[in-house]
C-alpha cells in the first residue's frame, strides 16, 4: 500500500503501475503538511493548487500512454532559495518578501520537465547563512525528532519536511554543509554533489565558489534518483561542468564495496565529537569492513584551518553577491518619500530588510576585502583553500572514498548557540573542507546516539565528479544497517501527533 511513508522509488513504481494516481499521492502529502506543519514550520509557502494541477497533468499524460521520467508524479519540497516562476521566493529574508520570480531556476525547470510535483517552498536561514534555520526571517523550523531542537541548517526546512513525511524528496543547497548537516540532524540522506554538477542558475547566490544544489531523501536510492533528475550541464551557469553525470542510481543499487579502500580522516575523529556520534561511526566502519572494504587512516592536517578560511571566503563573496539587493529592481524599498536620494534609500532598505547574521557577514566580508586587510585575511584564506585541496589529493591517493562524522554533535537545542556566532560556526567543522575543495559528499543516517536518542550522520566523500562512489558505499552501508535494525531509522522517531 503506497502512502506518505513509502520510498520515492516505491511511489514511482506504484504510479507507473497505476496503483495510485499522482493526485491521490499529492493530496496525501498536502494533508500531512496541513496536519503537522504547524508544529515544525518546514514550509514558507504551500502551493496546494499548483501541486494538484501539476499532478493532474501528469496523471493525464500517463493515462494517454506518454513515456514519463522515473520520478514523474512524485511530490517534492524545494528550498526557498530557488526561483520558481510566479511562486514567492524569499531566501528566508524580509528583503525579498512578496517577490514572485518571473522565471524558473534550471533545477525547478528540470523538476517540472520530469513531472516531479512541487508541493511548496521550504524554510531556511536567511540567504543560507546559518546552521539551524534560526536566522530565517520567518521563524525557526523545529526538528521532527524533538520539537525543542533545531533541524540544522541552512536547508533545515527541506530536511524537516522529508523527515516528517511531508515530502519524500526535497531540494537543498550546501555552501558549507547546509544539506549534509540538516540531513544528519534529522536522520535522512543528503548529498552535496561535486561543485558544478548541478546548475546554480536561478539560485539566490550566497558564496558563488562554494554554493551547490543537491538532493534530500529518506533512502540512498531515492537520493540518487533525484540527483540524476537535477544534475547536468547548463549553459546558463558558466561554472557548470560539461561532462556526463556519474551513474549514481546504478551505484546506489550495487550493494557491494569489496576491495574498496575507505579512508578515515584522523583529524575528524576523537575529541571534539560527542561520544554517541563517535560510537555510531565506529560501528559503521565495522559494517563496511564486514562487507569487504579495506580501512586506511589518512591525515588532513590543514583541515583545522578550513573553518577559519571559510568564514573569510564566504562572507567576502556574500558581501559582493548581496550588493544586488539595492531596492531598485525588485524586493523591498524603504524610505522613498521623495526627499531622499538613491543611496539613502538603499541603506535604509538594507538596514530594514537584512537580519543580524546577514549584516554581520556582509560587514565581515567588506572588512576582509578592504585595502590593507585583503592579503592578511581573504588572501590568506585562499591559500588555506589550496592546502585543503592538497590534503584531499593526498588522502584520495590512498583511498577511494573518505569518511568522517557529519557533525560534532547531534541536534542542538533551539536558542543554544544563537547568541554565539563562533560556537554556531563550529557545527560545520567537518563539512566545510568538502566545499572548499569542490568535491562531493553524502550524509547517511547511521543510528541514534546512546546519550540522547537523536540521529547521527556519517559523511562519505569522493573526488571531483566521482559522486557515484559515495552512493555505492552509502547504499551498501544502508542495507547492512537496515538488516541490523530491522526497520528504517525514521520509524524510531517520536510520533509528531503526540509531540508538543
Amino acid at each position, binding site marked *: 500500500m503506497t502512502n506518505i511513508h513509502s520510498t520515492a522509488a516505491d511511489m514511482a513504481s506504484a504510479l507507473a503501475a497505476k496503483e495510485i494516481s499522482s493526485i491521490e499521492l499529492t493530496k496525501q502529502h498536502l494533508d500531512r503538511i496541513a496536519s503537522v506543519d504547524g508544529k515544525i514550520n518546514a514550509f514558507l509557502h504551500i502551493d496546494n493548487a499548483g501541486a494538484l494541477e501539476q499532478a493532474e497533468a501528469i496523471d493525464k499524460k500517463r493515462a494517454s500512454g506518454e513515456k514519463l521520467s522515473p520520478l514523474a508524479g512524485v511530490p517534492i519540497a524545494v528550498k526557498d532559495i530557488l526561483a520558481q516562476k510566479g511562486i514567492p521566493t524569499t531566501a528566508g529574508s524580509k528583503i525579498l518578501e512578496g*517577490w514572485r*520570480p*518571473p*522565471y524558473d531556476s534550471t533545477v525547478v525547470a528540470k523538476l517540472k520537465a520530469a513531472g516531479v510535483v512541487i508541493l511548496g517552498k521550504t524554510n531556511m536561514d536567511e540567504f543560507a547563512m546559518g546552521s539551524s534555520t534560526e536566522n530565517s526571517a520567518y521563524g525557526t523550523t523545529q526538528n521532527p525528532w524533538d520539537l525543542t531542537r533545531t533541524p540544522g541548517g541552512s536547508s533545515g526546512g527541506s530536511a524537516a519536511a522529508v523527515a516528517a513525511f511531508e515530502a519524500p524528496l526535497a531540494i537543498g543547497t550546501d555552501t558549507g554543509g547546509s544539506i549534509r548537516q540538516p540531513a544528519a540532524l534529522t536522520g535522512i540522506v543528503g548529498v552535496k554533489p561535486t*561543485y*558544478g554538477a548541478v546548475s546554480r542558475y536561478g539560485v539566490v547566490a550566497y558564496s558563488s*565558489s562554494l554554493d551547490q544544489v543537491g538532493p534530500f531523501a529518506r533512502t540512498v536510492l531515492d537520493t540518487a534518483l533525484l540527483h540524476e533528475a537535477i544534475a547536468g550541464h547548463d*549553459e546558463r551557469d*558558466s*561554472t557548470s*561542468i560539461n561532462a556526463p553525470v556519474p551513474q549514481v542510481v546504478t551505484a546506489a543499487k550495487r550493494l557491494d564495496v569489496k576491495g574498496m579502500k575507505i579512508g578515515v580522516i584522523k583529524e575528524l575523529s576523537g575529541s571534539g565529537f560527542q561520544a554517541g556520534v563517535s560510537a555510531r561511526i565506529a560501528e559503521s566502519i565495522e559494517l563496511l569492513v564486514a562487507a569487504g572494504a579495506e580501512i586506511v587512516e589518512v591525515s588532513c592536517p*590543514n583541515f583545522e*584551518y578550513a573553518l*577559519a578560511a571559510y*568564514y*573569510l571566503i564566504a562572507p567576502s563573496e556574500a558581501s559582493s553577491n548581496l550588493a544586488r539587493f*539595492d*531596492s*531598485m*529592481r*525588485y*524586493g523591498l*524599498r524603504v524610505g*522613498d518619500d521623495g526627499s*531622499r*536620494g*538613491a*543611496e*539613502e*534609500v*538603499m*541603506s535604509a532598505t*538594507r*538596514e530594514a530588510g537584512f537580519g543580524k547574521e546577514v*549584516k*554581520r557577514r*556582509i*560587514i*565581515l566580508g567588506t*572588512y576582509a576585502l*578592504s585595502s590593507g586587510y585583503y592579503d*592578511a*585575511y581573504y*588572501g*590568506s*584564506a*585562499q*591559500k*588555506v*583553500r*589550496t*592546502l585543503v*585541496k592538497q590534503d584531499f589529493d593526498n588522502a584520495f591517493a590512498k583511498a577511494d572514498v573518505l569518511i568522517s562524522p557529519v557533525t560534532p554533535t547531534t541536534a542542538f537545542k533551539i536558542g543554544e548557540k544563537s547568541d554565539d*556566532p*563562533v560556537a554556531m*560556526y563550529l557545527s560545520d567543522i567537518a563539512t566545510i573542507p568538502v566545499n*572548499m*575543495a*569542490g568535491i562531493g559528499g553524502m550524509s547517511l543516517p547511521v543510528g541514534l546516539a546512546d546519550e540522547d536518542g537523536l540521529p547521527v550522520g556519517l559523511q562519505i566523500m569522493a573526488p*571531483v565528479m566521482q559522486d557515484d562512489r559515495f552512493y555505492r558505499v552509502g547504499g551498501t552501508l544502508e542495507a547492512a544497517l537496515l538488516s541490523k535494525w530491522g526497520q528504517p531509522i525514521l520509524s524510531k522517531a517520536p510520533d509528531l501527533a503526540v509531540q508538543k
Partner: protein
Amino acid sequence: MAAISRDDVAHLAKLARIEMTPAELDHMASELEQILGAVKRVQEVATSDIAPTSHPLSMSNVFRDDVVKPSLTNEEALSGAPAKADERFKVPQILGEE
C-alpha cells in the same frame, strides 16, 4: 591587529550601504573583533610559497554562441519592481547627492 572601533564599523557599514544605529555599531564592533580573532588563524599557515585558490574549478573564458533566444518581456522584468514608470524602473534621485 588593532581593535575594531565603532568608527571602523561605521565606515564598513557605509561602504556596504547598511544604515546602523549607534547601538548596532557597538554590538557589531565587538562581534567582529571576536570573529576576526577566531579566523585570523589562517595567517599561521598561509606562507608566501602557496598559490591562492579562488575557485574549485580551473575553467576560464566559458563562451557560448551568441544566439537570440526568448527572454523576459518588459512586463515580466518589471513585475517585481518597487516602483515603475513608462516601462522603466523608477528609482530615487541618483545625481545631486554629495
